[in-house]
């Protein structure tokens, strides 16, 4: 659903503390109740979210918003990895974040020693002499650990996230008076999760992280990019109504942004944002059936063996479009890269070990990455099936990591590998004859 369409419905209807009492009460108190109904018409493609505001004097305002059923991408996050943890009052952090200019891309969070922590913004854009003055303002803030309500970070841990995302999260959290922001993360390259909780609204963001390059901000940082996705809520795994509400609620999928800097490697940031207001908890609807949308399917079908021919470049990768990205078409020369490590991502989920996966990632990230949707000749269990299997056969949590791994693997694979194109050879052969 388009968030921009939903926003005006509720805009201005929530006043935390009435300033102008009369006006605010009119605004908020004028509404007796609010009814939200989902009208699901899967076949006709005319799903509607109907918001009815019952106001005083019998006025009823009805908003019909179009929505489309989609596979919600949710960045996966393994709590076990997240050994580092800190918490700080949101207002405080927001104040610090205001010092950061709008132009830098990355924010490094480093715990230098046991007393201070450093927030540094930097850019990876290489700026040549002529535009040296356009170098963005580089800001560094050193804070005492006392500022944090909680701080458990391994020494010398330095992790970098996107400034823009981090700043908007903090700004949002900072609008609530006494909210505490909690960030948990593991090694650089593993996702960071930021959470806060206010009046029944639970916000959870998963950010992609990276290491700061040894060569310094101007140099090329070691890219660690991951696209990880699995369904946020598997039926049965959630915690009752809360989970369900989260699923249905205004889930603004914030951004899945493939990195644009041409010099750097793919830097997609998968930020998922679930907002659920306690008010909306009254809606008791079953979670929408897990349906595999074209998007979900697209990530999947990747040929698994070197033998399987693949028409590269003939189909627009819906993987790319699915994540709303604008990935550049891969350079033609890289179409012919041989894929040796393919069986790492074999049909058996167990095959895709994390370490291998990590190692692979590091190797791959040196190039711009583009996913191809090539479903020809795939003898592998398709992603669609996998997902269905995961959902139907075993709804327990145990499936999740496996499935996730697979998806990670596949997503990454489809994002990074282009296999040898025998088709092309055939074509060439024709001309030779």
């Amino acid at each position, binding site marked *: 659903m388009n968030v921009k369409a939903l926003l005006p419905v509720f805009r201005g209807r929530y006043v935390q503390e009435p300033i102008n009492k009369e006006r605010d009460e009119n605004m908020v108190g004028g509404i007796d109740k609010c009814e939200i109904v989902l009208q699901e018409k899967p076949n006709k493609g005319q799903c509607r979210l109907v918001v009815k505001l019952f106001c005083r004097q019998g006025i009823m305002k009805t908003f019909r918003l179009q929505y489309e059923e989609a596979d919600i991408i949710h960045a996966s996050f393994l709590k076990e990895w997240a050994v580092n943890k800190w918490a700080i009052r949101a207002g405080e952090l927001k104040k610090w974040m205001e010092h950061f*200019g709008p132009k830098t891309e990355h924010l490094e969070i480093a715990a230098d020693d046991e007393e201070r922590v450093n927030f540094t913004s930097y850019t990876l854009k290489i700026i040549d002499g002529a535009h040296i003055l356009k*170098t963005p303002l*580089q800001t560094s*803030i050193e804070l005492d650990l006392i*500022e944090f309500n909680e701080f458990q970070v391994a020494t010398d841990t330095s992790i970098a996230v996107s400034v823009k995302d981090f700043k908007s999260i903090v700004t949002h959290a900072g609008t609530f008076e006494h909210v505490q922001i909690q960030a948990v993360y593991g090694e650089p390259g593993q996702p960071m999760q930021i959470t806060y909780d206010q009046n029944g609204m639970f916000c959870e963001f998963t950010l992609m992280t990276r290491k700061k390059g040894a060569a310094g901000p101007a140099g090329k940082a070691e890219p660690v990019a991951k696209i990880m996705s699995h369904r946020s809520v598997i039926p049965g795994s959630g915690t009752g109504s809360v989970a369900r509400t989260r699923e249905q609620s205004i889930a603004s999928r914030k951004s899945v942004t493939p990195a644009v800097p041409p010099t750097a490697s793919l830097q997609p940031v998968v930020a998922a944002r679930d907002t659920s207001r306690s008010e909306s908890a009254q809606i008791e609807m079953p979670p929408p059936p897990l349906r595999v949308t074209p998007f979900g399917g697209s990530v999947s079908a990747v040929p698994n063996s070197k033998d399987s021919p693949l028409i590269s470049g003939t189909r627009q990768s819906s993987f790319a479009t699915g994540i709303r990205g604008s990935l550049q078409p891969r350079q033609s020369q890289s179409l012919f890269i041989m894929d040796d490590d393919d069986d790492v991502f074999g049909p058996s989920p167990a095959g895709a070990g994390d370490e291998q996966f990590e190692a692979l990632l590091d190797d791959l990230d040196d190039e711009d990455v583009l996913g191809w949707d090539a479903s020809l000749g795939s003898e592998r269990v398709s992603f669609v099936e996998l997902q269905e299997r995961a959902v139907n056969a075993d709804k327990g949590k145990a499936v999740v990591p496996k499935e996730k791994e697979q998806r990670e693997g596949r997503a990454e694979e489809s994002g990074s590998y282009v296999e040898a194109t025998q088709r092309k050879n055939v074509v060439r052969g024709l001309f030779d004859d």
Partner: protein
Amino acid sequence: MKFRSDIHNITLLSKVAGSLSVVGKIGWLQLTPSHLQLRVLSTSDNSQSQVWATISSSSIFTDPKISSAHDNIINLEVPLDTLHRSLKSAASSYTSASIKLTKKEGIPRLSVIITTETAASMNHAKIVQDIPVRVLSPQSVAHLCKPLVPRPGCAVMLPPLNQLRGITDRYVKMVGANGRIVVEGNNNGVLKMKLDAEAVKVESEWRGLINPVVGEDGGMEWEDGEEDEEDEELNTQEKERFSKVMVDSRDWAKVVRVSAAGKRVIAWLCNNHSLVVYVFLDEEGDNQATIKFHGGLILRLNYYGDSVSGFETRR
């Protein structure tokens, strides 16, 4: 080349940078042991307005240490909005601040280091803002000097700036971005603003403004021409005579915006030649010595016409 100093008046520096960023994106910052000078050229294509801001070193810096191979003068090109941004966020709450010239990742930078007290624990937090700069050689700036203007026909203190700004904005709307606005003033305390657009003709007049004596304040310079320089009392007729300049509407709007930072704004009208606006960032009551260098911004707007080329050569 070294520069390092504590800043005791971050607000003033921030204000100057902010005002000047209205006029242009990049400024030329000259640091000398005694003063700091910022000069900006207007970014719009068809205007040649310039801003020169001179601030005494002591009004911003404490104990500056500056050294270079060229008479301890350092010339830098500075992105003004970045400079302004780096100072603005800290201007309200800082306990101490310093600035130094560094080089990071091969890019020379002005590092503003600000320590501020945190609300929660009253501990110190350190904020470092790195502003990219480009070092200019003395040769490349040697030809840059304040443009000289003939003795102004009229000097007038501008009316309250919020009022002037409101009116100017309306003028700009009526005449468009690159229209011409005529500014006239005489020595009898009258200032007129006129525009003659296609559909409308407007004139505003202020009376009873103060006419300061030209050159009364330090830091104001003009070219001693061959004209008579007698400082006799002007007779009534001469007092009534208007000096007229024509300015670009957008430039004029900028000048008015920049001037809003000042406490006292004096405009010189050099008939059919140029408009010079002096902005003093402090109150009139301050002693002269301070005023002399204390944040005098000089804004120049050209008259559009025959004398433009003449003005060019003087730069």
